[in-house]
């Protein structure tokens, strides 16, 4: 039987605004499948986003949604989670929104280990605002603001999240659509700050400037660069040159999450009275 996505979508919202071949739609389908597997209560689930192409995602899903200021998804989501700790809070956004404009909020949400899931759709560029380079644009690649190639080294979102203190970090690609829902489901189940980076394609503003002839070529590139974590263990450093690891990269269940710690503080403060 075909999967019933309509059940989770707001009626009359499709077709969505994303360009032909944009991977954000594939990620949204993955998120919906993950929500279905976990049987999440839509009234008890909040999806929070900032500004950008990827941040348009909550508008389509029929649950509690919040579309906030640029890069401030993590800040607003922290507020939601602190007010209602029983709520499932999912954040989504792009690489520019999450790691540049909201970079500070992102690393501090990681550090606090607050129980949320951040889905970062990394398409290597600021898509909506006109193709400016983001911290994830690979060195030497072109964007509208770097017509002769980007001189900056790029961020590795997964390593950044691990370094900042996130307790669950996974990476997938839009090509490996089957894996997306499994990674997101595992991330939602994890108690603590979970980051799922999905490598995506932006044919309109990134592909066009970097000599990708079609969406298919971009998808094939994702297929080629992705190496599952288990397969990478058997590979040499030379073979892994230019490859990207996918799957669950880091998981730490030993740390307590922020809302639990905060509840303890409330208890201590009230006991003193």
């Amino acid at each position, binding site marked *: *039987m*075909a*999967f019933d*996505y309509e059940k989770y*979508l707001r009626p009359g919202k*499709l*077709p*969505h605004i*994303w*360009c*032909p*071949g*944009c*991977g*954000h*739609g*594939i990620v949204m*389908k993955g998120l919906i499948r993950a929500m279905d597997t976990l049987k999440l209560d839509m009234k008890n689930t909040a999806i929070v986003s900032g500004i950008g192409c990827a941040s348009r995602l909550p508008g389509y899903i029929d649950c509690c949604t919040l579309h906030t200021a640029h890069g401030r998804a993590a800040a607003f989501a922290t507020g939601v989670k602190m007010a209602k700790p029983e709520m499932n809070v999912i954040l989504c956004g792009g690489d520019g929104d999450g790691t540049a404009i909201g970079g500070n909020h992102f690393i501090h949400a990681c550090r606090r280990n607050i129980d949320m899931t951040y889905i970062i759709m990394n398409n290597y560029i600021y898509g909506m605002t006109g193709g400016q380079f983001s911290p994830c644009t690979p060195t030497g690649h072109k964007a509208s603001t770097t017509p002769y190639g980007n001189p900056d080294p790029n961020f590795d979102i997964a390593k950044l999240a691990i370094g900042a203190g996130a307790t669950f970090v996974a990476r997938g690609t839009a*090509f490996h*659509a*089957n894996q997306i829902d499994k990674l997101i489901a595992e991330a939602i189940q994890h108690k603590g700050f979970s980051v799922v980076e999905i490598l995506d394609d932006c044919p309109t503003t990134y592909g066009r400037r970097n000599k990708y002839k*079609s*969406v*298919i070529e971009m*998808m094939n590139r994702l297929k080629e660069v992705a190496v599952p974590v288990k397969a990478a263990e058997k590979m040499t450093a030379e073979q892994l040159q230019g490859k990207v690891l996918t799957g669950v990269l880091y998981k730490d269940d030993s740390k307590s999450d922020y809302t639990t710690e905060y509840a303890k503080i409330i208890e201590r403060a009230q006991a003193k009275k």
Partner: protein
Amino acid sequence: MEKKLPKIEIIEKYCKGCHICVEFCPTKVLEMKGFVVAVKNLEACIKCMQCELRCPDFAIKVITD
């Protein structure tokens, strides 16, 4: 025994013609007809659901039973 064929439903209103489903179908069931996708050879379908899974626009449904 006769092979039970699935039903491939295409919502043309949603299709943006990105070619992903056509290209990644392992048995080449789909084709482009103008700007939208169409079923070319339903007999070859192996119900792998790759087209439904990868369609970014919610335009394809593979109904198996």
